[in-house]
């Protein structure tokens, strides 16, 4: 095609190239390389098309700068007659007017804008997508439908969903905001409405699952003790003499018990006097092995022992026939005697019926007594703290004020013990929580002691 264009251009009479083109002689002159021309590849490679390219570039250039080929334009549009300076003067006169009007600088566009302004005379190609929408028809139809529905007052589903969610959110947030320990929280009549049974059919239908029943054993109290144990009458702030004495006695007994245990432990831990080294034992230890012991004495009893054991072994000898027969007969006789004895005893028991009855009765009574005792013990056990974990329950110290600690009046009263601790211990005593110990602080990283320089100077 380039060739065709070239030919066409060459045939045109008024064609003028703007740029000085390379001489045709250059193309012809020089040694040409011989190449086979039966291959398309070679044609493409070795045929010279610069002239055509140049020409086309020139055409494009003309179009860009002047808006068309110069050759096709009329002479009027290309040339004008130069009549001197009159025109220019007019122009100069007109310009200041404009400048006055628009106040100079603001009228002139910035140079950067000018540079950026396109100077091509060819209008840009049309963008089809600028005024064509994909799926336009469908969208238009949908919009029309929505308009119709809106006119009718129907809210689209998505919007409805949004609206719904917004309302729900608001209520949820209000409920969430109130903490459990809010001091202004409100209460209602909880026990007014009938409680739904766990297998309520409506409930099951709505929620799709049965409510879980609370195990009956959970409603039993783990201890028979009352929640608040009132202190003994001796614990009054102004107690009666005897009850105060009774309380002191009780506290005293507790202390004595504690002391006894401590003493016992101490005694067990004390070093035995016999284990202590004396001068004598020390000396004996030093000379051990140096002095010959009388080994003979030790060895002689050993020998006797050995003899005795040997004798025991040798006793077993084979029995004779006679002996065996005799033994058999004896055995039989013994058994006979036994059976006879048994029979007589049974016969005699018939006459002992009364005493036997009494014995049985006694036994039963004893069993009953034991049973009741066990029952009692079990009852007592119910009020006792159980062993629920690693640690045993330890009863708190009794709150006691000595005679001289007691205050004369309510104003001077010094409260004894802590109620918080009392409540905590009560919870433990009633088996509601297991007794625990405060976790010990354990250092993870080793502490390094370094003497500071200031101290070092002093020491």
């Amino acid at each position, binding site marked *: 095609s380039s060739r065709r264009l070239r030919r066409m251009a060459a045939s045109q009479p008024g064609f003028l190239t703007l740029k000085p083109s390379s001489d045709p002689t250059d193309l012809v002159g020089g040694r040409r390389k011989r190449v086979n021309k039966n291959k398309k590849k070679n044609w493409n490679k070795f045929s010279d098309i610069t002239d055509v390219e140049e020409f086309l570039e020139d055409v494009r250039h003309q179009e860009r700068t002047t808006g068309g080929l110069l050759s096709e334009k009329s002479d009027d549009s290309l040339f004008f007659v130069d009549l001197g300076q009159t025109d220019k003067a007019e122009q100069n006169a007109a310009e200041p007017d404009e400048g006055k009007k628009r106040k100079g600088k603001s009228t002139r566009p910035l140079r950067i804008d000018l540079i950026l302004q396109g100077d091509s005379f060819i209008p840009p190609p049309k963008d089809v997508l600028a005024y064509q929408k994909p799926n336009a028809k469908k969208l238009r139809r949908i919009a029309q439908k929505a308009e119709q529905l809106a006119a009718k007052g129907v809210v689209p589903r998505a919007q409805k969903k949004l609206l719904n969610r917004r309302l729900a959110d608001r209520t949820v947030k209000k409920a969430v905001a109130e903490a459990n320990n809010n001091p202004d929280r409100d*209460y209602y009549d909880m026990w007014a409405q009938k409680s739904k049974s766990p297998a309520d059919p409506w409930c099951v239908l709505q929620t799709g699952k049965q409510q879980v029943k609370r195990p009956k054993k959970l409603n039993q109290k783990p201890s028979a003790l009352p*929640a608040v144990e009132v202190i003994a009458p001796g614990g009054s702030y102004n107690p009666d003499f005897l009850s105060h004495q009774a309380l002191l006695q009780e506290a005293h007994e507790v202390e004595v018990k504690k002391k006894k245990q401590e003493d016992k432990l101490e005694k067990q831990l004390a070093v035995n006097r016999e284990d202590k080294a004396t001068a004598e034992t020390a000396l004996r230890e030093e000379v051990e092995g140096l002095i010959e012991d009388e080994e003979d004495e030790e060895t002689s009893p050993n020998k006797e022992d050995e003899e005795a054991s040997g004798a025991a072994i040798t006793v077993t000898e084979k029995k004779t026939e006679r002996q065996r027969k005799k033994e058999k007969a004896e055995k039989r006789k013994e058994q006979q005697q036994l059976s006879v004895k048994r029979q007589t005893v049974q016969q005699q028991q018939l006459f002992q019926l009364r005493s036997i009855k009494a014995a049985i009765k006694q036994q039963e009574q004893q069993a009953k007594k034991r049973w009741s005792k066990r029952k009692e013990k079990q009852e007592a056990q119910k009020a006792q703290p159980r062993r629920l974990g690693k640690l045993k329950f330890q009863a708190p110290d009794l709150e006691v004020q000595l005679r001289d600690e007691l205050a004369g009046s309510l104003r001077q009263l010094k409260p004894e013990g802590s109620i918080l601790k009392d409540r905590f211990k009560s919870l433990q005593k009633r088996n509601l929580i297991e007794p625990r110990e405060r976790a010990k602080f354990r250092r993870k990283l080793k502490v390094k002691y370094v003497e500071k320089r200031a101290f070092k100077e002093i020491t």
Partner: protein
Amino acid sequence: MGGLQKKKFERGAATNYITRNSARKKLQLSLPDFRRLCILKGVYPHEPKHKKKVNKGSTAPRTFYLLKDIRFLLHEPVVHKFREYKIFVRKLKRAYGKTEWSAVERLKENKPTYKLDHIVKERYPTFIDALRDIDDALCMCFLFSTFARTGKCHVQTIQLCRRLTVEWMNYVITSRALRKVFLSIKGIYYQAEVMGQLITWLVPYQFSHDHPTDVDYRVMATFTEMYTTLLGFINFKLYHSLNLVYPPKMDIQAESELKEEFEEDYAMNSESYTEKLSALSGSLARVVSTEEEEEGKLDQFPAEGEDVEKMEAREKEQKQLEAQKKLFDGLKIFLNREVPRESLAFIIRCFGGQVSWDKSVSIGSTFDVTDETITHQIVDRPNFDKQYINRYYVQPQWVYDCVNAKILLPVEDYFLGVTLPPHLSPFVEEKEGDYVPPEKLRIMALQRGEKPAQEQEEDEEEGEEDDDEEEEEGDDDEVDEEEKAEEKNLKKMEEQKSQGKSLQVKVTPGKVKAENPARLEQEEKAEEKRLAIMMMKKKEKYLYDKIMFGKKRKVREANKLAAKRKAHDDAEKTKKKKARK
């Protein structure tokens, strides 16, 4: 033969229990959370009977729970909330670490919370169930409400506890339900009767806290969390049962009375109302304004024999109760600034008295010291200048003792600077034959309407050597005892162990003559009894003798105690005399 081999620990006790750690793992909770959940739901650890079996052969000490309980816990919605909270904390920590303050704000706004209403309902299906378990709740709330706001627990919790306890006290005042008070060295014990249930609670003295270190505050706070919810719902129900407005509102009349110019000095505007409520000096507003309550009289049923006696006893009790409720009616009591204001105001108002205090002590005072109509002033200092003539100046113990004695005790023993009589515990109930302290005997005599004189009490002798058969008979009725005491020649008189009896001999000698027929009747009764004893079988007689012996021994012990007491008193007296000389 054949069959599968039985494996150990796959049936029986071993399958009924679960250790704490495996339960925790099953619930996917941390140990503190698990502990909290158990407390809230009322699931407590168990001690199995055969530990070794349950522990799969090991004897290591472990905490066990019933497996069924733990399975039940799996369905609890609060568990999800715990997990949510855990995540919330994690996110918050992260946001703090990255110093993303807007994220911190947002997270804090959406802090997950939970409610315990459904758990309360589940644990206490009926109102009475809840009421029976309220002792603990009250103790805990009263305790927490006295805590200082120093970060040992949430300030909000303290405020809520305070609010609930004030509501409770106001209810007790309005329903006049208080029965007993006991000032102990630990704190103040109160007992009230609400809807037929005896409720005991312990209130600490003001400002008496040292925080012990061996108490797990987290556990206590969890219990309190549960109990505040419970107490709130109970309060609501109780208020509605009395037609009171809930949350409590002051009566219009009371409100106008309490209007003061200097309210701002005590509390901010927003708080002054609650403060006034907690002053306990005003009555509460009702839903239905009509004040009159019809005195519901017990229905009378025709009854025979024993029932009549029972009915009479019940009626008598009822009457006594009514009288006790109006104990301080018409009294105007002024509290000095050194006495425990809240406790005294609560008690006095519970029994219908009017109470006030100095304006500068607290908000809500109703009248001034200068009021001429004041009948008593509670004072707790050795001397007091500027005394008014027309009022008694008594020590605070008088109020408490009056409540326990159910009568107004003579004020002379409680005057300023007087050594007080001992404060006896009202929670001790003596059985017959037990030792009764003389102070209590005196109060009992006062209750019966007698006026014992101090001097006579001293030179009376104690009764000794008792005849057991008559002894038992003699204790039956106090009225009988009086009559018998008058008959000096009678043998019965000797075994009267109490001092009150011989004292009555001297005070009321004139009543004797009219009651002769009664005495005859008694004698007849005694005769009958003697005959009945004679007719007993050998075995029964043996048992009877045994019982009698036990009683006699008791009396002997009581006498010993009484003698000891007398010796102590004598010693004190001589000491005093010496001191005087």
